[in-house]
């Protein structure tokens, strides 16, 4: 346990977590997202599942904007990936540097860093309003689904207003009846260009 009361993962016991096969599978998922046309009828989720997944996204946005990061962290599975690439071409994370490529442990470290009171990049913290729209959901197995959405994050850092925009790709899994994030890939539309302070949580 950290002083925040959040869990501390030291070594994950998830199999193949962040090994080369995992990287290849992640790259393949992104390739499919980028190539996706009209969603096949067979992959359209039941309306109740679509609605439940939308609720998860809206909950995420609400927790992020309120700075409730320990609760936000609880929305991610033990084998989660939070991925912010530097490229817009879908590069292989085993060979391409990213802005952030977090496993569960690294995501916990980030939340802990922001809570130290000494994270000068977030003193004062960036205020955010996360808007999610164009939400599309696809089934990917009995208890797994993929989600694509557009995001606009309106921010204010110490009086300076700016926006972040792009699309998110999520893999979500139903765990004990509740949908949780397995992968969140944040595709800034200008990830390969100079970035302002992105040390808040996108």
């Amino acid at each position, binding site marked *: 346990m*950290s002083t925040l009361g959040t869990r*501390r993962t*030291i*070594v994950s016991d998830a199999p*193949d*977590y*962040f*090994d*080369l096969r995992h*990287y290849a599978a992640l790259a393949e998922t992104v390739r499919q997202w980028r190539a996706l046309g009209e969603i096949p009828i067979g992959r359209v989720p039941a309306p109740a599942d679509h609605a439940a997944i939308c609720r998860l996204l809206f909950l995420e946005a609400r927790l992020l904007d309120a700075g409730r990061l320990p609760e936000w962290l609880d929305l991610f599975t033990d084998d989660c990936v939070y991925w912010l690439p*530097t*490229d817009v071409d879908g*590069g292989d*994370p*085993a*060979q*391409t*540097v*990213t*802005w*952030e*490529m*977090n*496993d569960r*442990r*690294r995501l916990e*470290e*980030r939340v*802990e*860093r*922001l809570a*130290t009171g*000494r*994270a*000068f*990049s977030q*003193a004062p913290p960036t205020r955010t309003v996360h808007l999610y729209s164009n939400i599309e959901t696809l089934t990917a197995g009995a208890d797994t689904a993929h989600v694509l959405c557009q995001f606009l994050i309106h921010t204010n850092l110490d009086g300076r207003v700016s926006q972040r925009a792009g699309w998110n790709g999520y893999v979500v899994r139903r765990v004990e009846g509740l949908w949780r994030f397995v992968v969140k890939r944040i595709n800034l539309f200008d990830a*390969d*260009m*100079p*970035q*302002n*302070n992105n*040390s808040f949580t996108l």
Partner: protein
Amino acid sequence: MTDMDVLTLDGGRFAHLFRPGFVHRDLYVSPAVFAQEMRTLFGRTWVYVGHESELPAPNDFMMRSIGRRPVIVTRLDDGTLAVLLNRCTHRGALVCRTARGNARRFTCGYHAWTYDNAGRCIGIPLKHAYGDAFRTDANNLLRAPRVESYRGFIFASMSEAVPPLVAHLAGARQMLDQWLDRDGGRPVVVRNGEMQFLTHANWKTVYDNAGDGYHPPFSHTSMLRVFAERYGDVDMQYYSENFDEAPLLSKDLGNGHTMLDQRPAMHAQSAWARQHVQPGREVLEKALVDQYGAERALRMLDDSTGSGMNLNIFPNLLIIGNQIQLLEPQAVNRTVVRWFSTSLEGAPPEINATRMRMQEDFPSFGEVDDTAQFESCQRGMEDVPELEWIDISRHMRTGVGRPDADGLWREPISSDLHLRCYYDAWRRIMEQGDAS
């Protein structure tokens, strides 16, 4: 030893910006000084424009800059390199608008003046209108008159009157060798993506910080605290109470180049063992041990852990850990900091994947806080006209500097030696004036 020269050099048009142990805020806030730097400082010395591995094939090119000058670095058919000013000789437009690619010629979008990738003008539509005396070859793209590379690092100079690159690199050459010769000297490849940070501060604040061994335990408290609480005595925890006594040092490499050397602390035993965790650490280490045996696997991992060097090459190239950092000044108070990641040619994929994750570590856990400091300093320097002077005096009067075993001048890690060396070189070049 050159660090006192800034204090003793008399006269010159920039003399009013210097006094013993201090530099004037105009170096960071004056648009006029900035404009002069872009013209003279970047016009009269060697400037890094990229790495040869970024242009692996004939006719590859990439856009870069020399100060504010847009340039195209090209690899010609015969493998040689050229650095062309990306400015149509006709009206000034860019002739290349693509960050990188492969092309034998560049055609200006405005009136279709066309140049080959050595810069020769090879086509002008409706040329007859310029008269019979017109010479196409008098309209070649301007080329940087000097281009040399050192073990893959390409430098260009807008002035013919510079010493050979290796002479300019001085003591930085051997440090670059040491950086390149890790892991048996497998070639370093710079084709694995980059991070571009926009910093609302003068470009030199970034350089000042790369050589600043005084700030880590303070500016990086958040990072150090999280890692210490989780993982104990891992890397960078050697910035203890009196870190000037730790085996860490600041070094003058000549011609404005300097280094923070953390290797004596970081690489004393296994740097990999001391490295705090990164995603995939255990699983990739295990895969390497299974394939290569523990001894060889751990040696490869040690050689790919951060280098423990901050090698600062005048005026805007910083080699930090395993990354190549390039400062691109945009305006007096705006800078793009480009972090190029590196891999090793022929290394196991687990090594390069580990390198990617390690190279993401400091930028997002440390650099973000530094950037906040640069922007904060910029504001203070700009907005308080009553306080004109910036302190660069640490260890100037303590008498603890001495030659190291390699003959290079060394001072304790928290020294401002790097700033004094830098401004000494800055002044020498800036006092030469405009002509490039």
